[in-house]
């Protein structure tokens, strides 16, 4: 059997996805037998010139979001050269954590990072000046961060920040199938089709009505009851399951943060859940207060909607970047 040629390219990453791959342990040996790794910065080589030279990639895997022109170049090259393109991790699927940078303009981000931070003494912003130092060129920031899935068409999506061990195993199975000549289903998600709630074992009350949204340290909560009904913001209802037979954060007594992204019928995870949660606040008890009091109450419940609701999928939201005209 001919070994499949595997390439892994990086966008804006944190390194977690590399670690997630190594988490599968001995299965990595299986992978090594299945594929020839032709490009993977953490494993073999990471020069862009190298990637430009490679042709005939069977499986291209992309980590991270697209923040710079360089990230986009890697993505385009992988897309062009790969037969099967895999979005690995939440970032290539939905933009992930890096896309939270879109609450600011690129300029103000650079300004903060290179000029205004109290421990910085730079006299200029490298990205804007196209600073060249010997052979290195600092790639320009794009105007905003994009989800790679909005720029190219992926065949396989492996959401999760990072994807759990069982997702990596399933991806290795998929590569095995591919090597054996089996077709890969179109737009294949290595995740469930239903939400985290479907797999959550916590009990739910008949009616979910939240008097006050609380942070987890603010309340002594019942470990067997639904987080939401206790006023703890849990992204479970709006998030794809697949992170474990029992959802991994919930199992560890933490509410779901939403890293598997929206459900199949939903695109904008944050906006969708903003609707749901706004409705759940004092649901059924609204008539006890005036409109103004209710508005005030709702407003003070959520101080950082972008951070809390759009944490992993801002890049694919309807409003996915800073507006500056207003």
């Amino acid at each position, binding site marked *: 059997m001919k070994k499949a040629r595997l390439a892994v390219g990086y966008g804006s990453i944190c390194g977690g996805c590399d670690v997630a791959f190594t988490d599968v342990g001995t299965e990595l040996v299986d992978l090594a037998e299945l594929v020839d790794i032709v490009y993977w910065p953490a494993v073999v080589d990471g020069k862009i010139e190298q990637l430009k030279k490679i042709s005939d990639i069977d499986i291209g895997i992309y980590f991270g979001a697209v923040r710079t022109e360089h990230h986009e170049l890697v993505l385009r090259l992988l897309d062009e050269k790969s037969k099967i393109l895999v979005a690995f991790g939440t970032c290539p699927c939905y933009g992930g954590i890096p896309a939270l940078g879109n609450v600011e303009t690129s300029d103000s981000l650079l300004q903060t990072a290179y000029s205004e931070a109290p421990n910085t003494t730079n006299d200029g912003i490298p990205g804007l000046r196209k600073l060249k130092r010997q052979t290195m060129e600092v790639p320009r920031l794009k105007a905003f961060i994009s989800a790679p899935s909005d720029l190219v068409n992926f065949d396989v999506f492996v959401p999760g920040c990072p994807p759990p061990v069982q997702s990596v195993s399933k991806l290795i199975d998929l590569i095995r199938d591919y090597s054996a000549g089996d077709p890969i289903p179109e737009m294949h998600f290595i995740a469930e089709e239903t*939400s985290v709630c479907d797999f959550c074992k916590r009990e*739910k009350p*008949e009616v979910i009505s939240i008097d006050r949204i609380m942070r987890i340290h603010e309340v002594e909560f019942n470990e067997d009851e639904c987080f939401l009904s206790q006023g703890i913001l849990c992204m479970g209802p709006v998030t794809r399951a697949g992170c474990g037979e029992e959802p991994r954060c919930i199992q560890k007594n933490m509410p779901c943060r939403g890293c598997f992204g929206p459900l199949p019928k939903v695109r904008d995870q944050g906006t969708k859940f903003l609707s749901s949660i706004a409705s*759940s606040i004092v649901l059924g008890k609204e008539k006890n207060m005036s409109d103004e009091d209710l508005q005030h109450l709702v407003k003070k419940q959520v101080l950082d909607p972008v951070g809390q609701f759009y944490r992993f999928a801002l890049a694919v939201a309807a409003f996915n970047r800073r507006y500056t005209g207003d």
Partner: protein
Amino acid sequence: MERKSTERIGVFVCHCGRNIAETVDVERVTEEIGEHPSVVFSEHYDYMCSQPGQDMVRDAIKNHSLTSIVVAACSPTLHEKTFRDVVEKAGMNRYKCEIANIREQDSWVHTDKEEATAKALRITRSIVEKVRGNRELSPIEVDLHKRALIIGGGIAGMQASLDIANAGHQVVLVEREATIGGHVAKLAETFPTLDCASCILTPRMSEVANHPNIKLIVNAEVVDVEGYVGNFRVKILKKASYIDADACNLCAKCEGVCPENVLSGFDEYLSFRKAIYIPFPQAVPSTYTIDTEACLNPEGMKAVICSKCRDVCEADAINYDRSSEMIEEQAGVIVVATGYQLYAPENIGEYGAGKYPDIITSLQFERLLAPNGPTSGTPRRPSDGKIPKKLAFIHCAGSRDENHNDYCSSICCMYSSKQALLFHEHYPDSEIYNFYIDLRASGKNYEQFIKRVQDEGINYIRGKVSKIFEQDGKVTVFGIDTLKGERIEDQFDMAVLALSMVAPAGIRDLATKLGISYDDYGWISEEHPKLRPVETPTAGIFVAGVAHGPKDIQTTVAQASGAASKVLDMLSHDVITHLPTVARVERDACSACRLCVSVCPYSAITIEDGAASVNEALCEGGGLCAAICPSGAIELTNMTGIQMMSMIDAVSEEPR
């Protein structure tokens, strides 16, 4: 014009004479909408709703094999039904017909033809997008429990009960007080015919009492309502009466020995009654009742301190061991006929009622005039029992006043005039003044009645009274005569306040339990003021009488019969139909997060085997569940998320 397409939508643009065509270029709309990929036929006509217009729609459906149509015309509230009937006759499902409102929301509100035409196109395009996503639906059928529950035993509730019972259906009539009859039982004579109120009412009361189809539950309140049209389950809390109504022979011995005197509610607190009492001799059910608040024995008869009434009762009808009971009744339909109460006179401090004995309410004066009243029909003033010689009637006490109730109570002009006339007929030497803002006498023969009262020599002074107080046995009225432009300060022997009618205590709670809405004043809202005046927006629940807003006896009775006819219409079927534009769940996509269950106003959603399930009979199609669903698993039929999105696209499209 005809084009080729797999979807075959027809668009019909109405000129509405010049109403639309003057500001909207209907030909251009017809032409441009015809270019939509799904529109295969488009036409315009002078009056689409006319017979030739309807024929045009019918023929086009047949000749062009249309799968759905859009009529761009007036508001859907006007002719949606008309055109849906037309398409149904032509063999098309009625839910494949939609109306684009280009008259009320376009041609009538804009002047620039170019702009109005562009907007008409945007609106019509959005409706084309909507109809594209519409499913063929058939009405949902629900079994019907052939029984009516009437809440409130006043003249409205009685009339509705009798109409329904006489047509052969079972009725449960629930009344909060110890007797039915309501406010009308307290009245002396009624305008404009001066019929004696008791003569009108008491035969009807006994008819209710003896009707084999009517089950009467008094001293009772509806505490919980479950279910839906055709199948309501109602919990009724009946207060303990301690008296066996069948055994009581009305000998009145108990009343004779009872040591506790309290003010009589039936006599509007102008006389005393005992703690064991019958509200009035013709009360129905015809039995005594113990007022547990007034009785010496503590609440719930937990201890028996005094047993005088039981000891004296020869019929052995009194039993202190009885307790309140929760009665459960089933009914297919409900009529709300909860009436009104008078605005509390204390709220109008400047008018002095409650503070001064001879400033009384209109209902108190009614009791003074009534032959069965505390003074046997001789109107004596409360302070000293003298018959007043000079009387003031103060209209609009609490009505048409933004500090109190800004609405007109509808009947006060008439009953104040009636009271003045009744008094004056007995005491022709008396001097009577009506202080009014406007005289409203719009009912049949009402204006003539007012004329008759004026001819009798009763004075009318146009102007709002500012202050009333009593000093040294004289009631002083400050006001203004706006016709003469003079200040008025005059002394009277007594003043009668025509207090406004207000929604009764507890109506908001009851409405909430029933799932019906009420306006800012607490009056029950009707589904449509003109076309569906006795229906509430909740299917199977109707409203009759003053519960819906102030009105006179005539209108109340007519409305009660109207509600009864709607009830009978429903009860004449074995099954009832329900709007099919309900929520639907894609079970595979649902994860049972319970948010839809929590938001549904009708408890129509339950979780069955790990996924939400909609009870279609309960669902009213508001779509709250669809908006809260985080997984997009629940959709409102014919207003799905996809339809909404494509409509948004269509309205945002720039004109070419």
